[in-house]
Each structure stands twice: as structure tokens, then as C-alpha cells.
């Protein structure tokens, strides 16, 4: 589903990613772990070209999604971002109602059929395991929801436009353990339909939700393997030192 070949990425003169080659299969959860500044979020943001929005950045190498290089000039970036949804660390609902948050992407994409939109909003809120909690306040402000509910609303908003890939940048780091557990449970459900890539500082979370884990350090992909293997018997000593807290 996602293949990168010899990716080098620069913020001005600073090289943030060094020769990253890896592939992620469809309907799997891949977790990126590593210390702050290791390049994992930069790498994640390559997949929907979010780094394009930052001045002075430069990319070398290829990033193929479904076989196409997404940095090819022929790529429509809006269509790409519709197909590759993103959820951020802090829930960022729009200052609109719960319903309108989910309907927003559909309306932007030109859908006007009210019944279709209403059905899709309900379907998506159910997929995000939120519908039962908000069905009586669909037309209330999204800001009235709890942090965990807001984050699931953001996931629903991303799902409404039917992406095939979901990128998550520390989606539960601002949430309490109950909300975190709901997001993690949701990730397990969503991978049946979507390919998920998640950046997390919480290694236990990476261990719980992902099929494969990539460990990054100083812009390099140190190790990439099955999550079970990574957390029981990593190949590299550097990985072991990091995940066991022996670092530094």
C-alpha cells in the first residue's frame, strides 16, 4: 500500500530523514516510535504531502502509494489528501456542530443530497464508535464533547470522505486512559477497512495496537519489524536500549 524508497528529507540544511526505505501493507497498523526529533512525524507527514506546506523543505527519493509516486507532478494534492486522512495529537474539531464536522468533507466534495449526507454522518460516527454517545446532541457544538469524544469526532471527520489510509500523529497522547482505550479499540476495528500509520511516544500503545513497528533515531530507520518481535527480541541493540529505557 505504502512504499518509500531511499527517502531523504531536509529542513533547509538540516537533514531530518536519512535514506528511509520501507513498505507498509494494506489493512495493517504500522507504528513509528523513537525519541523526540527522530523524524517519525516528518516521515508520517510525507504520506499526505503535509510537509509541502513548510517553506525550505526538500525531498529526495520516492514515496509510492498504491504504486504511484505521490510526489509526481501529475498528482492532485486535494484528491491525495481525501484518500489519506489525518488525525492529530490535539483534537481539532471545527467550530461547528457535531453533525457539520462530519458532513464538512462531504459538502466540500460537492455532495448535496441531504439524505445521503445524514446517512453518511451516522454511518461514520458509528464507525468511529461515537454515535451512541452523541446521537442526542448531533446539532450541538463539537466543543461540548469531551476530549476523547472530540478526537473520535476528528477520526469520523477523516473517515467520512472514505479514505484508504489513516495517518495518526499521537492521537491519544492528550487523552485519559479510558478515552485512550476507546481510540485503541477503534484502531483495531478500523484496520479491517483502512491502512493505518500511527506515530506514538507511548511504546505500550505501539505494542498494543500495531502489527509492525518502525524505530527511528536521528532521522534513520534503525529497525522495522513485526511488533511482537520488536518488543520481545529486537534485532538491534539500539532498539533494545530505547524500548527498555536504557537510553542516555
Amino acid at each position, binding site marked *: 500500500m505504502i512504499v518509500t524508497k531511499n527517502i531523504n528529507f531536509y529542513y533547509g540544511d538540516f537533514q531530518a530523514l536519512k535514506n528511509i526505505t520501507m513498505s507498509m501493507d494494506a489493512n495493517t497498523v504500522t507504528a513509528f516510535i523513537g525519541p523526540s526529533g527522530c523524524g517519525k512525524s516528518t516521515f508520517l507527514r510525507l504520506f499526505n504531502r503535509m510537509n509541502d506546506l513548510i517553506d525550505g523543505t526538500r525531498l529526495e527519493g520516492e514515496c509510492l502509494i498504491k504504486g504511484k509516486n505521490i510526489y509526481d507532478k501529475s498528482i492532485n494534492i486535494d484528491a491525495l489528501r481525501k484518500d489519506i486522512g489525518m488525525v492529530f495529537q490535539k483534537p481539532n474539531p471545527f467550530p461547528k456542530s457535531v453533525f457539520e464536522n462530519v458532513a464538512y468533507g462531504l459538502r466540500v466534495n460537492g455532495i448535496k443530497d441531504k439524505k445521503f449526507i445524514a446517512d453518511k454522518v451516522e454511518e461514520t460516527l458509528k464507525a468511529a464508535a461515537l454515535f451512541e454517545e452523541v446521537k442526542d446532541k448531533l446539532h450541538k457544538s463539537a466543543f461540548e464533547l469531551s476530549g476523547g469524544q472530540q478526537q473520535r469526532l476528528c477520526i469520523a471527520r477523516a473517515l467520512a470522505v472514505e479514505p484508504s489510509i489513516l495517518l495518526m500523529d499521537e492521537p491519544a497522547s492528550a487523552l485519559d486512559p479510558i478515552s485512550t482505550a476507546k481510540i485503541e479499540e477503534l484502531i483495531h476495528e478500523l484496520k479491517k477497512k483502512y491502512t493505518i500509520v500511527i506515530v506514538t511516544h507511548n*511504546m505500550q500503545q505501539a*505494542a498494543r495496537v500495531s502489527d509492525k513497528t518502525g524505530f527511528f533515531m536521528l532521522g534513520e530507520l534503525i529497525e522495522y519489524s513485526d511488533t511482537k518481535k520488536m*518488543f*520481545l*527480541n*529486537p534485532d538491534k541493540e539500539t532498539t*533494545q536500549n530505547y524500548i*527498555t*529505557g536504557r537510553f542516555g
Partner: protein
Amino acid sequence: MKHNEKEMKFLRDEINEMWRLVISQIEKTKQALLTNDVELALEIVSLEKKVDAYELRLDSNCEHYIALYNPVAIDLRLVLSIMKISITLERIADYAAGVARYVLETECQPFTDKMKEILKLEKMFDILLSMMTASLVSFNSENAKNASRILAKDKGIDDIYSSSIDLLSEQIGKDHNDARCGLEMMMVIRKLERIGDHCSNIVEEIVFYIEAKVLKHKGKREV
């Protein structure tokens, strides 16, 4: 030293103490059986409770470590192996106490010098002690290179056990009146053979801890 490293060191120290206690139980069992020392046999039986207490304490401390520190990779393998090794050490101590009880309770004549020699009792104990000591060294030095050598020693125990069955069956066949004593002796040898098997299990745990390889149920050939 970080706090979690101190806790881990504490677990290592405790399993070391338990290991040494069980080694000394086997040394005492050897002496008690070979010299028919009743006093020593009583001491072995009373020390069995101390070994049990170590097992319970290590169980609890390992559970706390897992709950509080969420160990992964080599740390997780170490805690898991400590839990399993402590259970195995407790069983070994049970067998040692079982042999000591034979010394205390049997109504048969003690093993004669000739029987001790034929049944190679001293050799059996020496092999067991060398397996126990070598495995402790291997655990502490985090070196599984001599695992195959330690496991190969269990073959020596198995061979002695096997020939003991032949010898004791022959003896029982010759003298039916002495069948009970022959069977009791057989049970002593059987306990020593089981200690050898448990030593092998410990070595398998050490290999899992150090090299993340699972040897269980694969036999000694694959080491």
C-alpha cells in the same frame, strides 16, 4: 543506577540467593544419602520451607515489576525466566527433600558401599551439582554458549537412571522379599533423574532469556 535497574537487580539477587540455597540443599542431600546422616536429612527437610518462601516472594516481586515497569525485550525475558526458574528451583528442592525423607523414614538398610558404587549415586549427584552451578554462572554472565554442554550432562544422568532400572529389577528378581527396598531405592534414583530434567529446563530458560530462542520440547539436539 536507575530505579527500574535497582528493582531488576533486586530480582536477580533474590533468584541468586534461592539458586545457591537449592545447590546447597543438593550438596547436603548427597552427603545425607551417602553417609545416612539423619541430622542432615532433618535440616534439608526443614530448609524446604525457606525455598518455598523464596518462590512465593519472587512470584510476587516479578508480578509487581511487570505491573509497574511494563518490561519489554530482554527485560521482559529476564523477568519471565526468573519466574519460571524459581518455580523449577522449588521443584528441585522438593525432590531433594524427598530423598532426605527417604533417609529419615526408610525401614530398609542404608545403601551399601557396593550399591552406591553400582548405582553411581555419587556421580549422579556430582553431575547434578555441576549442572546447577554451571547454569547459575551462565545466568549471571548472560552467556548461553555453554548451554549445550550443560544439557549434554543430563544425558549422563539419564544413562545412569536407565542402567539403575536394569540393576534394581535384577536384584528384585533375585530376592522377592527385598522388593519394597528395591522400589524405594528406585524412587530415590528417579528423583535424582527428575532433578536432572529440571536442570535442563533451567538451561532452556536461560537460553530464552539471553538469546530469545525457545528450546522447550525441541530436545537437546537443537541447541
